[in-house]
C-alpha cells in the first residue's frame, strides 16, 4: 500500500543542537500509529514537521505523492487536522465558536457558517461528549473539558489524517478511554489516519496498529505493539525499570511501573 505521509531523512534543529536526526517514516492510510518516548525525545517536533508548521533542516515530508511544501496551507488543512497541546486563550469565545473554527478551511473568505458547518460542529461535540458545553465560555472549561473541545474542533475539520499531541494528558480515566475509543472509531469507520503522541504506553499498546518509539531525536523502533513494547526497549528508552506482560483481556503488551 502507498503511504499517506512519508517523511524522508528528516533532521531538525531549533538552534544549533539537532532535536531530530535522520527520521524516515511511512504512515499507511487508515492506520493508527502511536508515538511514544521520554520527554524531549522530539515527538512534538516531529508532529510539527509532519504538518509543515516547522520546516526540516534536512529531508522532506510528503502527503501522498506531493511534498507538503507544494500544497497550499488551505488544502493541507482540509486534509490534516492537528490537536496540539493546550493553547492559551486571550479573548472570550464560546466552545461552539471554537469548534466552528474547524470549518474554516472549507469556507470562503467572507462566508458565514452554513447549516452543514453547524451540523459538523455539533456532531463533533456530541462525539467528544462536550455538546452540553456549547455556550460555555472557553475560559470556564476544565483542562479535560477543553481537551475534548480541541479534539471536537479537529473532527469538525473532517480531515483524512489527524495528528494528535498527547490528546489524553488532562483526562480522567473514563474520558481517556472514551477519547481513544472515539479515535479508533473514526479510524475504523471514516478511515481517518491517526498519528498520536501518547505518554500512557498502555493506551498506545491497546489502541494502535503500530507504535513508534523515540529516544533523543531518533527512532528507536517501529512496529506492532507486541514487537516494540518490550521490557528491554522501555528500560533502555525511558531509563526506568518497568514490568511488561500480556494483558489477559486484550492480548496486548501491558506495562507496569516499578521502583528499583
Amino acid at each position, binding site marked *: 500500500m502507498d503511504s499517506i505521509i512519508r517523511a524522508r531523512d528528516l533532521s531538525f534543529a531549533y538552534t544549533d543542537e539537532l532535536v531530530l536526526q535522520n527520521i524516515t517514516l511511512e504512515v499507511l492510510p487508515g492506520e493508527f500509529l502511536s508515538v511514544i518516548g521520554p520527554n524531549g525525545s522530539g515527538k512534538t517536533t516531529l508532529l510539527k514537521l509532519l504538518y509543515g508548521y516547522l520546516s526540516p533542516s534536512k529531508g522532506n515530508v510528503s502527503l501522498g505523492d506531493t511534498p507538503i511544501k507544494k500544497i497550499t*496551507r488551505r488544502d493541507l488543512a482540509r486534509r490534516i487536522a492537528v490537536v496540539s497541546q493546550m493553547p492559551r486563550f*486571550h479573548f472570550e469565545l464560546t466552545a461552539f465558536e471554537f469548534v466552528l473554527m474547524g470549518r474554516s478551511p472549507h469556507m470562503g473568505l467572507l462566508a458565514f457558517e452554513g447549516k452543514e458547518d453547524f451540523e459538523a460542529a455539533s456532531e463533533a461535540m456530541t462525539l467528544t461528549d462536550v455538546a452540553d458545553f456549547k455556550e460555555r465560555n472557553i475560559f470556564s472549561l476544565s483542562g479535560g473539558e477543553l481537551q475534548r473541545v480541541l479534539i471536537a474542533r479537529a473532527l469538525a475539520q473532517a480531515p483524512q489524517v489527524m495528528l494528535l499531541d498527547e490528546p489524553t494528558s488532562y483526562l480522567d480515566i473514563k474520558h481517556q478511554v472514551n477519547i481513544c475509543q472515539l479515535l479508533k472509531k473514526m479510524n475504523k469507520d471514516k478511515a481517518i489516519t491517526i498519528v498520536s503522541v501518547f505518554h500512557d504506553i498502555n493506551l498506545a499498546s491497546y489502541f494502535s496498529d503500530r507504535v513508534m518509539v523515540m529516544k533523543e531525536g531518533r527512532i528507536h523502533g517501529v512496529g506492532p505493539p507486541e514487537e516494540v513494547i518490550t521490557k528491554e526497549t522501555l528500560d533502555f528508552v525511558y531509563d526506568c525499570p518497568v514490568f511488561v506482560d500480556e494483558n489477559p483481556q486484550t492480548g496486548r503488551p501491558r506495562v507496569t511501573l516499578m521502583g528499583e
Partner: protein
Amino acid sequence: MVATKRKLVLITLALSLLFFAVLVVSIVLGAARVPWSDFYAILTGGTTDRAAYSIVVQIRLPRILMAASVGGALSICGVVMQSILKNPLAEPFVLGLSGGAAVGSILFILLGLSIAGGGFLFSFAGAILTLFVVLVLSKRKGGFSTTRIILTGVIVNAFFTAFIMFVITTTSDELLHAILFWLYGDLSHSTYMNVWILSVVLSLSFGVIYPYSRYLNILGVNEELGYQLGIEVERVKYMLLILVSILTAFAVSLSGIIGFVGLIVPHLMRMAFGSDHRLLLPASLIFGGVFMMIADTAARTIISPGELPVGVITAFLGAPFFLMLMFKDKERWTQ
C-alpha cells in the same frame, strides 16, 4: 455568540441609527447654539441665516465628520492589533507610532515652517519611519515575534516621550500650547480635505481587512492554530499589521494623539457582541465614530467658549465608564 448574517445586519442597522442620531445632536450642540429650525432649513436647502449656515457647514460638520472617521479608524486598528498581537492591551499606538508622529509634528511646529499640509506630512513621515524602525528591530530569523514587536514599540515610544518632554520643558509658552494640544488630540483644524483623505483611506483599509475577519478570530487564539486551519499566517499577519499601522499614521497625523478610543471601543464591542470579527469590525467602525463624536462634542462644550483637547475627554469619560462595565461583568477577565 455565533456570528450570523442576520446579526451582522441588525447590529449594523442599530449602530448606524445611533450614529446618525449622535451626528445630528453634535451638529446642534456647541459654543454657538444652532436652533433646530435653522438646522432643518440647512438640511432641506431652505433659506437661512448665514451665520448658522457657516457654523454648521464650514466649521462644525467637517470637524464632526473628522471625529467620526478618526474614531472609526482607531477602533478598527485597535481590534486588529489586539487580535494579531494576541494581547487585549494592544491599541493602535502600541508600535510607537504616536511617539513618532508627535516628534514629526513637534519638529514642524518648532521649525515654524509654513507649508500647506506640512504638519500632516511631518507627523505622517514620523509615524511611518517609526513603523519601519520597529519592524526592522523586531525582526528575527524566520519571522517576527509578537512579544518582540510589542517590547520594541514600547521602548521606541519611551525614547520619543523623553524627546517630547525635553522639548516641552525647554520651549517657549506660545509654542507650548500648540504642542500640548496636538499631543492630546486636536480636531479644531479639521477641513473637508482632511475628512476626505481619512475617510477614503479608512474605507479602503476596511475593505481589505474585513474579508480576513474569520482569520483574525483564529489568529487571536494562536498562530499555530492559524497554520493548522490553513492560514498563510506570516503573510496575513504582516499585511494586516502594516495596513493598520498606515491607517493609524493617517489618523494620528490628521488629528493628534487621541488615546484610549482604540483600546476601549474594541472591548466595549466585544462585551456587547462577542469576539467574532465579522461582527466586531463593523461594530467597532461605527461605534468608534459614535464614541468620538460624543467625546468631541463634550470637548467643544464643557468649558465653552473655551475648548479641551479631545484626548482628555476620551480618557476622562471612557476610563470610569469602562471600569464600571468591567465591575458589572463578573465572568469576564477572571483568568
